């Protein structure tokens, strides 16, 4: 029984706790327990490492932990729920950069002894580097420090191709002579640059996929770093996180009916600019008073939230309206499209924040069969995910994308600022349907207006 053995035993316990944590996330009833178990596993792993006997000095560790804890706690407590996507992107970036630094230290101190060591080190700094800068760009776009629109420049593909080729060629040179510190640094630099070019052309509505892919990469980096420093726990955890990112990416891509390569390299919003042709119909607007009268008589209502709801911060107003509708004898459900918002599950978190019980949140597949029986479907800040063109118009860029069948409801309200097109740059024919009524204006003000109407009527 030596120290090494004991530390590895604790790592096994930690792995079990991490896996159980994820298992308990399978239901909202047990999820908090899962989070606690996972945190406990992390604490055990840290304590075991601290007392493993490998460590000589502690002053830098203490400094690092103090800084990290202070910043982490500050950011986590301050972040608003609408800021979750950027928070997650920031965390991806930090994890990846930490991995790169660990790799770098290992290389600086020990070098790379054999070919497998050099290969894992190479993979680790390439993926770690591009994940770090890619996440920083994603964070910038999500927090609107960088324009969310796809940024394209002439020769972008050529630059990207050049970067890939350089990284591969330099990589081969590095593998043949792993002692070349200069090559190590150049590869790292190019990978950082590549991460920027990879994410900058991707538009805001494709962010759910980008975040999922970066999440997967951050797991892969932890994994490769595990190979670099021969640590089994890093490999286990990296594999779990990598699998998580892959699953979420697949779900997001399916929900947009697009392939991963198309999302990552297609720059959807910029390339596809299709003008709606055919006769110009008129969308019918409706006043708040009339909308209220229809809602007052509704027996069932479905609310479809989109990114616009997050932008307008309308979630609390929506909850109030939902409660008033229920008090009025109306059955209220919320229909959530998988890619609504800027990351997987974004809308669920916002509505949960507004105290809407999760039983009222319905997934696309479970709400669609019910849509024909619904009196009023209210679309708040969503556009492409309710465009019926995806079902029948083969020329539409979103043809084949699964949507929430809002148009099947008896009356459809669309809360929107103007008649502008959605992210895909296409007209939404739903707006011109006979059963559709537009309510123009800021989503929050509109919903608050409806709430006021209900309150006045109750007096």
């Amino acid at each position, binding site marked *: 029984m030596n120290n090494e053995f004991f530390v590895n035993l604790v790592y096994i316990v930690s792995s079990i706790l991490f*896996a159980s944590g*994820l298992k308990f*996330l399978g*239901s*909202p009833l047990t*999820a*908090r327990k*899962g*989070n606690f178990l996972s*945190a406990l*596993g*992390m604490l055990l792993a*840290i304590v075991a*490492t601290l007392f493993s006997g*490998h*460590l000589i*000095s502690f002053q*830098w560790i203490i*400094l*690092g*932990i103090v800084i*990290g804890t202070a910043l*982490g706690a500050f950011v*986590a407590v301050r*972040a608003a*729920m609408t800021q*979750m996507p950027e928070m997650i992107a920031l*965390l991806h970036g*930090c*994890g990846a950069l*930490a*991995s790169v*630094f*660990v790799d770098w*230290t*290992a290389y*600086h101190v020990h070098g790379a002894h054999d070919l497998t060591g050099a290969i894992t080190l190479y993979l680790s700094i390439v993926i770690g580097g591009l994940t770090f800068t890619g996440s920083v760009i994603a964070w910038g776009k999500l927090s609107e420090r960088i324009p969310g629109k796809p940024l394209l420049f002439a020769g972008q593909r050529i630059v990207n191709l050049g970067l890939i080729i350089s990284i591969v060629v330099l990589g081969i040179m590095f593998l043949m002579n792993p002692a070349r510190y200069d090559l190590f640094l150049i590869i790292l630099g190019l990978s950082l640059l590549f991460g920027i070019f990879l994410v900058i052309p991707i538009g805001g509505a494709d962010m759910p996929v980008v975040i999922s892919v970066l*999440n997967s990469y951050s*797991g892969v980096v932890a994994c490769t770093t*595990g*190979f670099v420093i*021969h*640590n089994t726990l*890093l*490999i286990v955890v990296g*594999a*779990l*996180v990598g*699998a*998580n990112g*892959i699953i979420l990416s697949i*779900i997001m891509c399916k929900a947009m009916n697009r392939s991963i390569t198309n999302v990552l390299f297609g720059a959807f919003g910029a390339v596809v600019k299709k003008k709606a042709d055919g006769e110009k119909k008129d969308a019918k607007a409706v006043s708040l008073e009339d909308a209220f009268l229809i809602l007052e008589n509704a027996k069932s209502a479905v609310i479809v939230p989109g990114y616009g709801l997050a932008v307008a911060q309308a979630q609390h107003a929506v909850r109030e309206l939902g409660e008033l509708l229920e008090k009025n004898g109306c059955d209220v459900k919320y229909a959530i499209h998988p890619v609504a918002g800027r*990351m997987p599950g*974004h809308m*669920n*978190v916002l509505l*949960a924040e507004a105290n809407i*019980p*999760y039983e009222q949140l319905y*997934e696309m597949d479970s709400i669609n069969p019910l849509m024909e029986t619904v009196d009023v479907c209210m679309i708040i800040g969503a556009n492409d995910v309710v465009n019926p063109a995806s079902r029948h118009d083969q020329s539409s860029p979103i043809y084949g994308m699964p949507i929430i069948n809002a148009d099947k409801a008896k009356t459809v309200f669309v809360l929107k600022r103007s008649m502008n097109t959605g992210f895909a740059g296409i007209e939404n024919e739903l707006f011109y349907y006979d059963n559709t009524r537009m309510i123009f204006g800021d989503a929050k003000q509109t919903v608050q207006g409806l709430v006021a109407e209900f309150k006045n009527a109750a007096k």
Partner: protein
Amino acid sequence: MELIYLLFILVLSIFLGFALISRVPPLLHTPLMSEANAICGIIIIGALIAAGAEATSTLTIILGTSAVALATFNVVGGYLVTERMLKMFKKKESA
């Protein structure tokens, strides 16, 4: 042999990951992601070794300390933010 043994662990862990995560409902996908961020902070055990045993030059001190700080940021930020989100998911009150 060491490499084969590590690959063995990797492959089984990937299967475990797929099995566990495909059971998480879309409702909890955002907390799932922040949870993944938090456990990704496990890189901290590598960072501890870097900062505690290999910080012998200015460069390694900077790298090691930054790695510990960044990984701690992930762990603390990830778990706290997950907890904050999960706390909000409520069942309907039986009023």
